[in-house]
């Protein structure tokens, strides 16, 4: 379990991270969202023991980042936003070097290396020199390096930056798999629609302050308390808006430019089912009835003002 308590970092008068607190359980994948300079990287660097907090602390499975940084380092895998790799070694040698550092016995190392290469889909590149790998492959090799010691917490700072769409999709699958394996994953990213696809928790940070934290749906609802339901109807639209407005939980209904009925629903899923039933009972021929997907980008834009430290 990761527990962050009142974590704060200041540089002179500048408060880079302001009393951050949250908790993550095994299997949680946190999307850490914020503009450039919001404090994401500073937070991640403090949790990874690279940067000393001014006050507050964080603990991973009981190991405190200040009191027991060595214990913490054995439990984390850190992938920075910008990184380099030793370019004079082969992929397996690179992983062997770090496996050695993390104290994996030499007899176990070949199987550990094979496993992480397989997990990151780099088995065919085992004997390739690191500098010969593409950017996406290097990204995956870096992730493989994070995994050699089977960490409980993965800190991935902008892992998808510079990747093509296919590499991003592969990375997303990999992160999902890591979550299923029971690891805590913190992913900072600007590509918000992608985060919504695989994160079960989200944290929005601006000027070092955590503006929102919780389950994705929970955060979206806190910002956008009503749900938008889109209904498309065959034939005449007369009376649809009036029928919808008469239903419980509906705060607004209108017809948009594409001809679909947009209903703002503040009620529960029960109310949503009742709304559909009423519309059908009134003889409206509905061929599409759907709730608008969670939109982290809207949440992000509503919560933040674009201010940076």
């Amino acid at each position, binding site marked *: 379990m990761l527990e962050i308590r009142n974590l704060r970092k200041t*540089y*002179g008068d500048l408060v880079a991270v302001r009393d951050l607190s949250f908790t993550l359980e095994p299997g949680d994948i946190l999307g850490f969202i914020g503009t450039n300079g919001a404090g994401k990287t500073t937070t991640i660097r403090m949790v990874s023991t690279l940067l000393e907090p001014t006050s507050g602390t964080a603990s991973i499975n009981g190991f405190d980042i200040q009191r027991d940084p060595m214990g913490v380092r054995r439990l984390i895998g850190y992938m920075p936003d910008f990184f380099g790799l030793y370019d*004079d070694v082969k992929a397996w040698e690179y992983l062997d070097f770090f496996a050695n*550092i993390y104290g994996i016995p*030499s007899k176990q190392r070949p199987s550990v290396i094979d496993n992480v290469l397989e997990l990151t889909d780099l088995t065919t590149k085992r004997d390739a020199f690191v500098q*010969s790998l593409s950017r996406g492959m290097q990204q995956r090799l870096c992730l493989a390096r994070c995994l050699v010691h089977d960490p409980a917490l993965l800190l991935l700072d902008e892992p998808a930056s510079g990747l093509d769409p296919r590499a991003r999709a592969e990375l997303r699958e990999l992160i999902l798999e890591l979550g299923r394996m029971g690891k805590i994953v913190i992913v900072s990213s600007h590509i918000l629609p992608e985060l919504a696809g695989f994160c079960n928790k989200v944290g929005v940070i601006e000027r070092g302050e955590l503006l929102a934290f919780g389950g994705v749906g929970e955060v979206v609802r806190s910002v956008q308390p009503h749900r938008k339901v889109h209904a498309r109807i065959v034939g005449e639209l007369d009376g649809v808006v009036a029928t919808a407005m008469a239903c419980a939980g509906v705060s607004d209904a209108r017809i948009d430019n594409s001809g679909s009925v947009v209903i703002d629903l503040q009620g529960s899923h029960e109310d949503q089912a009742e709304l559909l039933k009423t519309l059908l009972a009134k003889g409206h021929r509905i061929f599409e009835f759907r709730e608008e997907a969670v939109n982290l980008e809207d949440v992000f834009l509503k919560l933040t003002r674009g201010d940076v430290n």
Partner: protein
Amino acid sequence: MIRLMDTFESPLLGERKRAIRKIMNPTTSKGTNTAIRALILLLYLVLAVYGLSVDNSALLAVISFALLTALCFLTPALLHSAIAGEREKRTWDFLAVAPLTASQIILGKFSAGMSAVLMLMLACSPFFLMSTFRPVDPEMSLSYPTTFVTQPQYVLYIALTILTFSMALAAFSILISSRSRRAFTAQGVILGLEALVLLIFPTFLSAISTDRIYVRLLTALSPYSSVSGSLDRAVEGSDFYGVGSDALPMLIPPLIPCATYLIFTVLCLIWSERTIRFADNDVRFVKARARNS
């Protein structure tokens, strides 16, 4: 050698293994590495041919000075980027988040550099052995009647001087590297200070006076002077110092420079370790203006 190292599970050895792989692996795609390997091999062959054609004392002098000079360049070349290069290539964070103490990182880097130095010294050891124990050719001894290695223990002193000086240079290179932002800057500083200490300063001192005792003491601490002194003592009748072989033996015993280099090594390593302590780099190596902007 790597398999032998695998029997030890110390994280320190990772750096040594990586350095040895880098040096020994013939398939590495870096052209400069291949060129350096070819150059060392060529020099080695030239020395081998030369060694067979000259007498023992000449071979000892050439191999001693050649090895010392080679290490003056090779050691900084291997270690100038030990820390600064990692920082510059953004690989440093991976070491910093690994469960390694600052001392382990520094000693790992140091042992990696020293592995290469020891490999070169081992490669040169046949020449030292040849110059010490090769039977003297009677015809050659007639032409060079005063140049026999008569005191083999001084050959050991020469090797010790070269080794300890290399250790000092390796530790100094790591220190400068740990306090530099860029590897290139570190390389420039190391070579510049080396030139100052080994060339400019001794020349300046000798221009002042060679008679004063402190000048002699400082000069004797130079590895070239120390090696010359040991050569003078090892080879009866020679005068590499140019001031007479009996001028210094009582003043500076051969092990004093070695001890000085070892003390310097330890001091540099301790200072380096203090430089790269937990979370220090973010403060020390980020410009104040950038931090506050």
